[in-house]
């Protein structure tokens, strides 16, 4: 693949007249000559290569100092079709006169070559002095303006204050400024008002969230394991660590070292261990029958590739199979890098973990709800025999008028298959998959339900006739979850006709994956109970629930023993349950009867604590071999075990004195990455920082700083920023301040028709870029505007509402119990992220799937995005809440100007500015039109307003019309765009 540099906008000529190889000569040679006389020996002609000085000199193609003796000059000047270059068959235009002159001067000056620009040491070019000195606010502007002046382009005027505060708030915190903040800033006469605003935003805890999310893209952070099973994992303490570290402005060298090698620091703190989860964000394959070594190798390779992409901006992955075709990354380099990461204790799904509690990373441990004693211990005595009275209760429950349900959907997490039999029971006919979870969605004609009965049934296809899939026909049902309308319903009592000692039915509703309901009995049991017979368990809900046309969803978890699954079953429901005798062992089972409040969550993606996966090295290191063609089954034994090392060419480009000599561990690697004389890390990091502010990097191919990537548009600026980063002690906040305080950043983003010819893509930044904000920020902005935002920082992931049918494309149905209460309104970055089936908001708005490192998101603009903001439950809820907020802030019965006032306020909230006259008229017309309609159709008005309470003194038609106004505003381009 060829990636060409951006069109040369102007030749950068040194005042001295010295021709620069990388900027002036290489592009010409690369475009005109390298295809036949370049690095690729497959396409090389005449055994001549012009990409190295040795090659060019060898055949006297170039004779330094003597252009007229250089064959290169002769050929490019020739008109003879048999000898001219490029040859006619290449169908390339001849070199321009200017290009010929440049090459001549370069040869005259000695035909010096330069290495690839990105590997050269940082150039120490001080900011130049543009003619219009007054415009520049800092060094950034001097570079930008000097170049603009060279092209005869005027920069744009500064954006107005409202635009500026919205822009810089979204860029630094991802949240909208409040109307009060906007007003205060607009009125602030202090010449440093903007700088103070920037300082305030950088001190906001939401700064760490905003920039943490960018970093999490690179860390390929997600809440699930990936591949096909894609089970949940608890990695959120790492997310907490990233947020905290950025908020603390942890210097980037420390930030790097702790993530790559925190465990190897002397006496690491717990947080330094948490940081190492960076490289445990690799995928885990939970499928049965996999070779764990294969997936260990995959994970190690991912660590190499991610490290290369994040810190070096190099696509090292190519060298996994062979020496990189264009960049000096050898096959061996790759496996020396690999050796750093090949020492981990983790092997696919096994590895070192550490329990981290909610808030712990922030130094604020949140006490988990007291946990009931482990059931196994607690239940030993009473449950080992039939609890007196429980059979009475069960008999009573079993005699109720149970109604069969109608199955709408039935599937299993591992897609092992459930089959509906003619008798309305479900059979696991696929033989079951290890620890599978069954999900059944059912309808009932009952108006409400008070309890659910699970009947487990024998079948000839099951081992020993079943009803379970274990060899003896047993099962362990570890958890039963019952939900209606996406809400999980607490169970107050569980009972069964029969249970195995220590495995009562209550154990299936205790939220503990290590306990469950099972049915094995010793032979010759005194009670005469048999295992291989039909049995049933009844789950009485805390409160009867009204179905109201909603569907019932039941999940059966089998998390304990791999094959101990229910084989055949049926569900039944009942409308009411009689009062149960108080003397009955409801008390005895009280520890197991759960209320929602007391239910302790399992450790994991959404739990109060997490078993965080962290890095740890083996005591006895593994040997590392080069894999031939990248195949882990073909280690190169001849070459022998490799010692850890870094990319030789990058190392060689470092000044000799600063060059580390020995590499042993990840700590050495990390220290080399942030060694001040390693030019790649600061360049790559600053380029990405720039990208987030201007829509694209100074090097547009921010992921490829190799020779196939694009060249920097402002090379000196990039080097100056990289140098500043180091000089500022690797402080991100200092660099943010530098960039957002620049006049370049503060420019208006309005389109400039005068640039259509000169710089249509705005590479030279004669204006700001207008960019649609990312998926998470669209949600966050909506939450801000509606006033619903729960600004809590950090913690486990949450499940806001998502549309029906998300999992109809995927193999595995996920357990998505919609969060209620404040968790429903957390920022987008806390939404539980399943790699195989992310919340659709994210994929629709271009979030990656985090299967691998993502350094740059694309930005699309599609009808599906329109449907999301228009109709997604979460956004509809935001529009309604925003309308309620308007009524609250401007209360009362309608008086002259109130409607207009609410529209004005809505715009100030959403756009951080008042509406234009035209915008106001449009919104007023919408409001008036719909008000008229809703006044005639009260039911529609109530439906539009939704379930939230109606504010005092506001008619429902008025309120419903206002929802249309807010919904229209949320759907405009101006709302989702940072201008």
């Amino acid at each position, binding site marked *: 693949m060829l990636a060409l540099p951006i069109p040369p906008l102007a030749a950068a000529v040194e005042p001295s007249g010295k021709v620069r190889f990388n900027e002036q000569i290489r592009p010409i040679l690369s475009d005109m000559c390298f295809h036949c006389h370049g690095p690729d020996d497959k396409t090389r002609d005449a055994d001549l290569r012009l990409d190295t000085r040795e090659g060019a000199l060898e055949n006297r193609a170039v004779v330094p100092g003597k252009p007229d003796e250089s064959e290169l000059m002769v050929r490019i000047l020739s008109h003879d079709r048999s000898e001219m270059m490029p040859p006619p068959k290449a169908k390339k235009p001849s070199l321009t006169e200017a290009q010929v002159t440049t090459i001549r001067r370069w040869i005259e000056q000695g035909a010096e070559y330069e290495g690839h620009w990105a590997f050269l040491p940082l150039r120490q070019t001080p900011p130049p002095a543009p003619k219009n000195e007054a415009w520049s606010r800092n060094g950034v502007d001097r570079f930008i303006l000097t170049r603009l002046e060279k092209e005869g382009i005027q920069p744009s005027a500064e954006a107005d204050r409202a635009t500026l505060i919205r822009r810089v708030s979204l860029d630094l915190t991802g949240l909208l400024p409040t109307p009060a903040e906007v007003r205060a800033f607009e009125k602030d006469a202090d010449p440093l008002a903007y700088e103070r605003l920037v300082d305030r935003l950088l001190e906001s805890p939401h700064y760490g969230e905003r920039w943490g999310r960018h970093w999490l893209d690179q860390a390929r952070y997600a809440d699930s394991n990936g591949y096909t099973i894609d089970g949940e994992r608890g990695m959120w303490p790492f997310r907490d660590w990233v947020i905290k570290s950025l908020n603390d402005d942890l210097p980037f060298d420390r930030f790097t070292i702790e993530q790559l090698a925190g465990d190897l620091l002397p006496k690491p703190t717990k947080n330094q261990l948490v940081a190492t989860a960076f490289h445990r964000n690799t995928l885990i394959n939970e499928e049965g029958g996999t070779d764990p070594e294969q997936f260990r190798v995959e994970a190690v390779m991912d660590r190499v590739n991610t490290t290369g992409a994040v810190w070096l901006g190099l696509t090292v992955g190519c060298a996994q199979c062979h020496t990189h075709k264009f960049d000096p990354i050898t096959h061996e380099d790759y496996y020396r890098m690999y050796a750093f990461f090949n020492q981990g204790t983790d092997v696919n799904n096994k590895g070192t973990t550490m329990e981290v509690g909610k808030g712990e990373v922030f130094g604020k441990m949140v006490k988990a709800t007291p946990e009931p004693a482990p059931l196994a211990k607690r239940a030993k005595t009473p449950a080992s025999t039939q609890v007196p009275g429980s059979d009475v209760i069960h008999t009573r429950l079993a005699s109720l008028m149970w109604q069969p349900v109608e199955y709408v959907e039935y599937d299993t997490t591992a897609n092992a298959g459930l089959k509906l039999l003619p008798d309305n029971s479900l059979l696991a006919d696929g033989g079951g998959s290890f620890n599978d979870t069954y999900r059944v969605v059912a309808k009932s004609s009952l108006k409400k339900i008070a309890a659910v009965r699970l009947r487990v049934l024998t079948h000839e296809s099951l081992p020993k006739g079943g009803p379970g899939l274990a060899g003896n026909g047993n099962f362990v049902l570890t958890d039963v979850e019952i939900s209606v309308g996406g809400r999980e319903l607490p169970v107050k009592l569980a009972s069964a006709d029969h249970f195995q000692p220590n495995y009562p039915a209550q154990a299936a509703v205790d939220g503990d994956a290590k306990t469950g309901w099972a049915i094995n009995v010793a032979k010759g049991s005194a009670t005469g109970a048999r295992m291989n017979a039909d049995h049933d368990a009844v789950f009485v809900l805390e409160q009867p629930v009204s179905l109201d046309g909603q569907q019932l969803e039941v999940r059966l978890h089998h998390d304990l023993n791999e094959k101990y699954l229910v084989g055949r079953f049926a569900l039944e429901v009942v409308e009411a349950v009689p009062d149960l005798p108080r003397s009955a062992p409801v008390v005895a089972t009280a520890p197991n009867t759960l209320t929602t409040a007391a239910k302790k969550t399992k450790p994991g993606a959404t739990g109060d604590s997490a078993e965080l996966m962290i890095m740890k090295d083996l005591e006895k290191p593994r040997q590392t071999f080069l894999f031939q063609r990248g195949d882990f089954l073909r280690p190169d034994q001849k070459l022998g075990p490799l010692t850890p090392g870094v990319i030789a060419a990058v190392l060689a480009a470092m000044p000799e004195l600063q060059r580390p000599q020995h590499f042993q561990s990840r700590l050495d690697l990390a220290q080399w990455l942030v060694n001040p004389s390693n030019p790649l890390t600061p360049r790559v990091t600053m380029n990405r920082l720039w990208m987030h502010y201007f829509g694209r990097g100074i090097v547009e191919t921010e992921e490829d700083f190799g020779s196939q990537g694009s060249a920097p548009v402002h090379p000196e600026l990039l080097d100056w920023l990289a140098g500043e980063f180091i000089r500022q002690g690797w402080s991100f906040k200092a660099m943010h301040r530098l960039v957002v305080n620049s006049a370049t950043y503060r420019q208006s983003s309005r389109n400039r028709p005068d640039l259509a010819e000169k710089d249509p893509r705005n590479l030279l930044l004669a204006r700001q870029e207008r960019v649609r904000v990312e998926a998470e920020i669209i949600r966050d902005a909506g939450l801000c505007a509606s006033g619903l935002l729960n600004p809590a920082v950090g913690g486990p992931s949450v499940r806001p509402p998502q549309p029906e049918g998300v999992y109809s494309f995927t193999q595995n149905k996920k357990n998505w119990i919609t969060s209620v209460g404040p968790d429903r309104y957390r920022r987008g970055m806390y939404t539980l992220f399943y790699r195989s089936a992310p919340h659709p908001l994210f994929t629709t708005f271009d979030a990656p799937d985090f299967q691998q490192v993502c350094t740059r998101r*694309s930005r699309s603009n*599609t009808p599906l995005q329109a449907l999301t903001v228009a109709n997604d439950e979460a956004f509809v809820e935001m529009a309604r809440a925003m309308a309620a907020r308007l009524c609250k802030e401007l209360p009362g019965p309608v008086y002259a100007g109130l409607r207009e006032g609410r529209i004005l306020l809505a715009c100030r909230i959403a756009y951080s500015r008042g509406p234009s006259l035209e915008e106001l008229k449009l919104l007023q017309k919408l409001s008036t*039109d719909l008000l008229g309609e809703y006044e005639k159709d009260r039911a529609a008005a109530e439906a539009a307003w939704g379930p939230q309470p109606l504010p005092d003194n506001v008619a429902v038609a008025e309120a419903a019309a206002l929802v249309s106004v807010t919904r229209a505003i949320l759907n405009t381009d101006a709302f989702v765009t940072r201008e």
Partner: protein
Amino acid sequence: MNHCTPQLLAETERRMVHDQTRRHFLGRCGIGLGTLALNHLLQQDGFGAMVPGSLKIDPAKPMSPRAAPQPATAKNVIFLFMAGGPSQFELFSDKPRLREFSGQAPPASLMAGKRFAFLKGNETLLGSNRKFSQYGQSGMTLSELLPHHQKIVDDVCWLRGVSTDVFNHGPAKLFMNTGFQVPGRPSLGAWLTYGLGSESQDLPGFVVLQSGPRGPRGGNSLWSSGFLPTSYQGVPFRSSGDPILNLRSPQGMSPGRERKLYDTVAALNRSRLDEVGDPEIMTRINAYEMAARMQTSAPELMDLSKESASTLDLYGVKAGQPSFATNCLLARRLVERGTRFVQLYHTDWDHHGDQKNNLSDALEQRCKEVDQAAAALVMDLKQRGMLKDTLVIWGGEFGRTPMGEVRQTVGRDHHIEGFTMWMAGGGVKPGCLHGETDELGFGVTQDRVHVHDLNATILHLLGFDHERLTYRFQGRDFRLTDVHGEVVKGILG
């Protein structure tokens, strides 16, 4: 272990060397062709150049139908993508000599320099135990696994020597779809809708449907618009219920009220566009318009109640059950309604010989899922007179090896040479057999069709010179076929 006689393969190798030389030559000389005569093309066809190297398209109407610059035989495309790489040796390619040498090591001369995804080097040749017969006037060979394909054997043009460059799923799928192995380039459907717009203004011009056990590896980069405007990216549809998430307006919003709201949003956006001049706003206005139209057109599309029982039976559609069959029928309905490009992914053909991915029951199951409906699609289009301008393409990202791969069961690894695809309608020669492989199926002995050639041919059928359908990005005029590709003249009707 015995090896095959070298004589047997001499011809094969000669051909392969010849092919490589030819490709090498073409590859080198192809550079730069894309930029030639571009303005000429644009002027000739009424597109002024907005930026040189790209079509001029009114940003307000990115999907307005546009005439192809050359006479076209096809207007629409349905691409049945068999994700995972079906085995040509079990379906189309009867190799008696492979059976004869089954169990023997492959000839070293053929293995030299070959790259495989998973083979460990000790595999032996594997003859297929499937029954093959020849059918129709064309005499195409089909195995017992594709009984329904017998009915379309003379409507279809069989490409039996297709080759690609890549042997891993993700990159190979990207290569087939975009001409490049890395994500970020426009896909065929994006190029076509960029070039032709769409006849439908109520449904997306480029729709993606999925069936089979899981989504295709490579994900949405397979239907990406790359650096083309995002209006041209493929829109995935669910094959049951609401095809698109969030299709329903919130409660209390009648269609009339919703219309007023959308009109207001459009007017607000237009007002902002006048103010700031960002063309991206126009794209958003269009996105909302399309979204509004999809709210009525999408449910209508999905409503199969007006399809006759005989049509449903022809495809094997079972009411309410998402399947490849349903998707094939939906594809016809989409094309009927003007959608330009429909791509169906059906997983999973990756039969390495795992417990689940084997050449016995798993392959049989895949064939059952696909055989009837794919054949039905061709027959249905034909009887409706739609086949003449609808091009149907069937195939995967690569084929499978002549060697067996031994895991829990026996399967085959990925093979980039000499696999089979078929095309029907849209101006391809019906009943045409194009391409031959050697007796062991290692390489192509005649009429090799490389992925770039295939894409060049598809563009040709739709009225484009593949060297001239370009888009300028980062200073270069990019095209679907990179700097390669030759139209396969032999299959044009």
